[in-house]
């Protein structure tokens, strides 16, 4: 076995240490997110794009990158695609930094746990009913990406590249 000796040894050990630390850091910061309801992981950054896979509520997805309001993810089956930040539960960061508030601009209402803390506080302070907005959100969440694709297809509308 070839030994590393002399002045090269500390440099080698330092290199190994850096590589190990970098690897551990990458593992520790590999972000996982959870979808709050059944969603399509899409082939492109658009609600009308074809799905690469449909995942059920509470599925954990690995974050590959973020772009605007879109998150490129890898599914448990290894497929890659895009989901909107609005499809994600807001407190799903496995690094342990998650909180109950708004993370990355994700609407917690959209994330299925009720209105944002700020909004709840505001409505309470003003003695305003949240019934209407909650109904709006609930009904909106019932309209799926598939419903939208079928609706667009039936009317031959939607972005041209998704019209068939």
């Amino acid at each position, binding site marked *: 076995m070839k030994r590393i000796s002399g002045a090269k040894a500390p440099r080698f050990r330092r290199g190994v240490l850096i590589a190990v630390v970098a690897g551990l850091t990458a593992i520790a910061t590999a972000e996982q997110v959870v979808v709050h309801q059944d969603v399509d992981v899409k082939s492109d950054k658009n*609600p009308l794009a074809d799905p690469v896979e449909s995942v059920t509520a509470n599925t954990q997805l690995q974050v590959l990158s973020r772009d605007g309001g879109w998150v490129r993810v890898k599914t448990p089956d290894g497929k890659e695609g895009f989901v909107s930040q609005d499809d994600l539960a807001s407190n799903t960061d496995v690094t342990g930094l998650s909180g109950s508030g708004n993370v990355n601009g994700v609407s917690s209402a959209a994330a299925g746990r009720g209105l944002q803390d700020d909004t709840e506080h505001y409505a309470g302070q003003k003695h305003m009913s949240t019934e209407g907005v909650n109904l709006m959100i609930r*009904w909106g969440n019932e309209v799926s990406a598939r419903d939208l694709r079928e*609706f667009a297809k039936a009317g031959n509308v939607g972005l041209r590249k998704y019209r068939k």
Partner: protein
Amino acid sequence: MKLLTPRKTLLAAGSITTAALILSVIPFNMGGCSATNLDVATLVQGGGKLVQTASITEKDEPSLGEAVAIQVTNRYPISRDKALTRYVTLVGRTVGAASTMPNVKYYFAVLDTDQVNAFSGPHGYIMITRGALKMMHNESELAGVLGHEIGHVCKHHGLDAVHAAGTAEAFKTMARSEQHAAVFTQGADNLGDIILNTGFSQPQEEQADEQGVIFMTAAGYNPDGYLQFLQRIQSEQGSSGHPFGTHPGIKDRVKRVGNQIVRAGTSGKGATLEDRFKANVVLR
């Protein structure tokens, strides 16, 4: 957008007849001078009464949007017609998918009022009145009005209005933890007032028109639909419907939208979907 502002006194004067409805509307957003023209930095430097609401950012848009939706749905009852709301949502999301913010999950509601209006809060909370739907003839008109509202969302007009309005100097002395809630409350109040009462600035309305036409066209709808809807409002108001002198009103907006469509060469192209609209928008 402040699509049309009701004249409550006229509505209160008698039963809701077609004539009263026509009289109850005035041109889009005629009441507001441009809040965005305020030089907030100058006010701060000059020791004025306002300071910039630095703590309200794009991250707060979902909360602001919800707060706007709460204010609107507390003023106007939300329709319980689920099928109608679903249809409006599908049309709106089709346009939203062709917008510059296709990632946003847009939420829609129909408001049970004969007033002709539509409202939008940040991050895609959009409400349209039954009165506005009644005035429409086909799906492209609906796509145009929803496209206009989505234009406000994509241009962050709500957040801009909150920043421009500023917040009270007194908040500066509050503890950081209290400051955000206080600033948010005032921001939401200010924005609600703009959206429900004074309207966005005229340049913002024109920008939303422009964006809406681009989005609806990209979504495959005939942009003439939006122009025709604006023209219908204009004709029902009459040629004198220009009560607040200095700002360009509906007439100017009709002209701008018409010119935009001519320049783009998209007139007469795209879906109108009158049958689908009539099958889904059944108003009693």
